[in-house]
């Protein structure tokens, strides 16, 4: 999931009797599964939570271009380069689309980007891990886009209309990315040299746990998660989503002929789910705090691109203003 630990600004859930008439009507609509639209009344905290979640999601799409861009110039074949370039282009499009969804809540893209650049806004922890071999392009597609889909399929039913519609559109492309990523790995495992097979296992070893962390911390003691669920911004809890992801991914792992770096991973016939080992939450919170392997580089690169582009954006603006003025003068003259 591209939005982790989204702060709702709420310390405890309100009881219906504590709500204003507006809030009660709002909650009634949520309960009826009718979508909230931009012009509708909504509690301030709901609006703020949505802006945080949607922008975090958008930032993740944009920062996520970097680990994949790292291999774009070195893609091993023309076909793989075309696929990767198309995927990166899609991710950038997702970012743009999500910024537009956030704009319907009254916050502009520039403002949101500014929060990203100044380190105030977060993006998914997963993109702070380095991509170190070509199989990472497969592992990212399969595991990272895979984990994102599990979350986003559910978010298609999220209560805010524009966000829900963005998810429907984005999900189609994400599933394509996931299949493509898996196919990269499958090709290397089935037709590859021993060195290529080692790359695949190495990529899975490095991306397995960080992918599970994408769903965020455990459910217990998460007020934010509970509030988001009540508002139906979130539709399933972190742990439920993580379990769904593991259950669908392990059989695919077996088809690859690879293993997960988790000795406790095994099928539990009683629960009908896979059991898995304890996630290293200290690593997760460290990455969230900015101490992951690539936090600094990712943000620096983004900021540098933005700063290097200032004169270009200024020029485009100046040109547009001149054109408008020119058109106005022509109109007056005629």
């Amino acid at each position, binding site marked *: 999931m591209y939005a982790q630990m989204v702060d709702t600004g709420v310390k405890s859930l309100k009881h219906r009797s504590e709500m204003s008439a507006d809030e009660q009507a709002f909650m009634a609509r949520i309960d009826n599964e009718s979508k909230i639209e931009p012009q509708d009344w909504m509690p301030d905290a709901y609006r703020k939570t949505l802006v945080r979640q949607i922008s975090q999601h958008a930032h993740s799409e944009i920062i996520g271009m970097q680990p994949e861009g790292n291999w774009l110039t070195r893609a091993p074949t*023309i076909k793989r380069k*075309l696929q990767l370039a198309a995927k990166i282009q899609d991710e950038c499009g997702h970012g743009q689309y999500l910024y537009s969804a956030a704009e319907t809540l009254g916050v502009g893209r520039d403002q949101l980007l500014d929060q990203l650049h100044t380190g105030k806004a977060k993006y998914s922890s997963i993109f702070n891990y380095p991509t170190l071999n070509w199989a990472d392009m497969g592992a990212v597609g399969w595991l990272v886009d895979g984990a994102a889909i599990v979350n986003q399929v559910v978010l298609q039913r999220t209560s805010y209309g524009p966000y829900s519609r963005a998810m429907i559109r984005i999900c189609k492309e994400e599933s394509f990315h996931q299949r493509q990523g898996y196919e990269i790995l499958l090709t290397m495992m089935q037709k590859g*040299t021993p060195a*290529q097979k080692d790359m695949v296992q190495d990529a899975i070893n490095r991306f397995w746990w960080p992918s599970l962390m994408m769903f965020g911390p455990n459910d217990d003691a998460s007020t934010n998660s509970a509030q988001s669920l009540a508002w139906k911004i979130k539709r399933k809890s972190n742990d439920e989503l993580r379990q769904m992801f593991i259950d669908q991914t392990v059989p695919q792992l077996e088809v690859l002929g690879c293993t997960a770096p988790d000795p406790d991973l095994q099928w539990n016939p009683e629960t009908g789910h896979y059991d898995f080992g304890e996630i290293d939450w200290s690593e997760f919170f460290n990455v969230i705090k900015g101490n992951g392997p690539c936090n600094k580089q990712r943000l620096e690169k983004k900021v540098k691109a*933005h700063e*290097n582009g200032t004169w270009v954006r200024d*020029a485009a603006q100046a*040109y547009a203003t001149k054109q408008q003025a020119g058109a106005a003068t022509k109109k007056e003259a005629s």
Partner: protein
Amino acid sequence: MTQLLTSINNDHDALNTYILRMADNGLILGQRLCEWCANAPVLEEETALMNTSLDLFGQARNWLNYAVDRDQRLQDCDAIAMLRDERSYLNLLICEQDNGHFADTMARHYLFDVWHRLTLEELCHSHDETIAAIAAKSVLEVRYHEQRSRNWVLRLGDGTQLSHERMQTAINNIWPYVAEMFDQDQLEMELMAQGIAADQTIIAKQWHDLVAQTLIEATLKTPPESYNQMGGKQGLHTESLGIMLAEMQSLYRAHPGATW
């Protein structure tokens, strides 16, 4: 395979040499645009640059497939792209020039795009049916590239004082690589006589008219004629190309015989 390619590197028939020149323009400029990934000034440009790169690689693949069809020794398009050294690459020098800043990239792009579009329009009437078909497909994409890069020449040329200066410098710096686009060697003259290759004398005139108009509109000056750099089409390149190829080919070359 490497040896095989080296031995036929300079042994293409005239038509395949011409096809490879077209292919290499796409490969090399496409690769340059990949380098912009996550560095663009705005998100819309991020997607546009990536899209243009995609188009160029797609076109290159079509040209390469045709070259392989005609000469089985070439085996497949990845081997041709990944195993040739810079002396065997036949792209125009303008395509391999460094990205520089955004004005450098867009100046290079626009001057090449106009040539590319005009050349492809000519090639739509080539007596070689496959060339005509590839050109017809490519030209639709390249018209759009030209529109976009022309827009940036206008915006930066007639934007702010700073962008104006940067665009003028960019145009001046890339100008020595313009003449090569119209320079026809013996090989091209012969293919042109057969109705296969594009006639660059006609294209040169149209190109100069179009570019002059754009530069005036962008409040920029056409650089004075000075010296011209030639040789790309014959495999004599600038130093930029070798480093770029080293990066592009590194993974493929590190795993001979691997399937990706």
